[in-house]
């Protein structure tokens, strides 16, 4: 039976953009596609739109199912739907796949019109700023002047923050969840190991593996395994797997012995067949590059002074990849500017992944904040 709080069956749409997009790197995308989904209805005053920004491996399919028998709904389905914290009875929710991705928006596996071949290694570096610029184009296309809110976790939270800086008058609220004002050296290091795993895979062919009919699966698999370690807390891993053995006894060989190994291999395998290595490389680079304070000599307060939005910042106590201390840096900079900001530090065991979990208190925070957003008389 259909769950009445689900958005139900959804279908992605694709917007084509012929106007070139100049990227932060200076390179130019001559034209591009953005694939997106929407949930709920845009009100008559077009004042109830909420943009969802995805994280490293996310995409446009945030809620509902494409087919009745899909095994899983969209990646943030527990948040989005009629009566759910991001209530589609109130809001018109837009989720998209970012440029450089591999789920339908223009990315490294797309055909480069200049060569007639996949972009591959030639696909430019994309940044959080570039994504925000392309997302703004999508809003123009949809006829939405101003967002009621922009919402994102992790790398998505960085986009939410960037929105308030690049288009201050186009966003009324920003929900910045499990995010950071930039990556720590340790985070950059993890990303670099992930990239090296991919780039040293013999099937990588400098990023032009499409024409060799190969996929650098081993590299992508290791990159994802590494990622998974950092998304979970030590405690969460211990609670879930501990030193549990898959077959009850040690075998004294290199096959899967511990449940932990089994989980990582499974996650790695699943991801390596579903995601594009070139996209993964670029998503990690976008993370590394994000640093709004950099252009202001490291002064985050000055960097954020352009914003006009109200903010909700949320962190999770066990998140060591994007720790509460990093969220507090954002909060401090917002306070320095006397902006309206609330900050929630959610007690959660799941580590960085907590932002995707349906923790009741966390969801209640989002529900309460979103319920107070005024969408005008047009609702």
């Amino acid at each position: 039976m259909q769950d009445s709080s689900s958005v139900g069956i959804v279908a992605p749409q694709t917007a084509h953009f012929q106007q070139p997009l100049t990227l932060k790197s200076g390179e130019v995308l001559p034209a591009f596609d953005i694939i997106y989904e929407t949930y709920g209805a845009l009100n008559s005053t077009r004042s109830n739109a909420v943009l969802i920004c995805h994280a490293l491996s996310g995409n446009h399919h945030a809620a509902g199912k494409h087919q009745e028998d899909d095994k899983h709904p969209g990646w943030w389905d527990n948040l989005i739907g009629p009566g759910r914290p991001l209530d589609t009875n109130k809001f018109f929710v837009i989720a998209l796949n970012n440029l450089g991705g591999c789920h339908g928006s223009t990315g490294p596996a797309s055909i480069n019109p200049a060569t007639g071949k996949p972009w591959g290694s030639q696909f430019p570096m994309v940044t959080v700023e570039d994504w925000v610029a392309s997302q703004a184009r999508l809003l123009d296309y949809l006829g939405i002047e101003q967002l009621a809110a922009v919402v994102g976790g992790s790398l998505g939270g960085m986009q939410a923050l960037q929105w308030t800086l690049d288009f201050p008058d186009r966003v009324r609220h920003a929900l910045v969840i499990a995010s950071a004002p930039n990556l720590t050296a340790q985070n950059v290091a993890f990303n670099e190991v992930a990239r090296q795993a991919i780039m040293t895979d013999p099937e990588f062919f400098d990023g032009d593996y499409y024409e060799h009919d190969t996929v650098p699966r081993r590299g992508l698999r290791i990159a994802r395994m590494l990622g998974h370690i950092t998304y979970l807390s030590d405690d969460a891993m211990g609670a879930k797997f501990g030193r549990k053995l898959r077959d009850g006894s040690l075998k004294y060989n290199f096959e899967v012995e511990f449940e932990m190994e089994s989980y990582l291999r499974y996650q790695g395998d699943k991801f390596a067949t579903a995601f594009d290595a070139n996209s993964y490389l670029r998503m990690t680079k976008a993370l590394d590059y994000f640093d709004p304070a950099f252009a202001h000599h490291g002064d985050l307060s000055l960097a954020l002074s352009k914003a006009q939005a109200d903010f909700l910042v949320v962190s999770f106590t066990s998140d060591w990849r994007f720790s509460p201390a990093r969220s507090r840096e954002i909060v401090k900079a917002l306070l320095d500017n006397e902006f309206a900001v609330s900050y929630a530090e959610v007690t959660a065991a799941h580590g960085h992944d907590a932002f995707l979990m349906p923790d009741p208190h966390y969801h209640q925070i989002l529900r309460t904040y979103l319920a107070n957003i005024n969408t005008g008389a047009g609702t």
Partner: protein
Amino acid sequence: MSTEIVREAENRRDFALIAEWVQPKSKVLDLGCGDGSLLAFLRDKLEVKGYGVDKDDANLLACISNGISVIQMDLEAGLAGFDSLSFDYVVLSQTLQAMVNTEGVLREMLRVGKQGIITFPNFGYWRHRIQLMAGHMPVSDNLPHQWYNTPNLHLCTIDDFEALCAKMNIRITDRIVINEGDTVSFMPNLLGSLAIYRFEQAAWPISY
């Protein structure tokens, strides 16, 4: 969205007295802000720019629901994250007695705020003294808990508080003592149940 709590706050004599000391459109930080009712009251009366601090999950939700900006953190850890003298007033309402680090909190209040405003139950109130003489820990409207479940750690009398201020070189600019909503000016340490102070850091004397 917060009209209901403001309506309730209208009946709070301590809120009304605090409001008399706060300049319109000033910036207020309320430590241990609860559901944000004082800030909602000051916002509606005086258009103050207010922020609350509370560590409790339920209070955080209440503040967000009431449209009050709230920062979830533990006061005991200090006010890192708030710049020095970035607020006109830092308020600590009925919370001082529950703090572990009493002096540290007072010091942080006057680092972040130009002035501090504090309220606390007067342990020296005569009804408290009578209960003690009768052999029991005081329980009253302002001290509603039993000894075994009270959050209070550092209860003090009006005279005790003023002695601490003197020791910390804190200058008390205003004091109002009330009992059941009425101002008490005669023997306040005996007849007053709730004390409300406004204070600021005095310049330390130059020593040679």
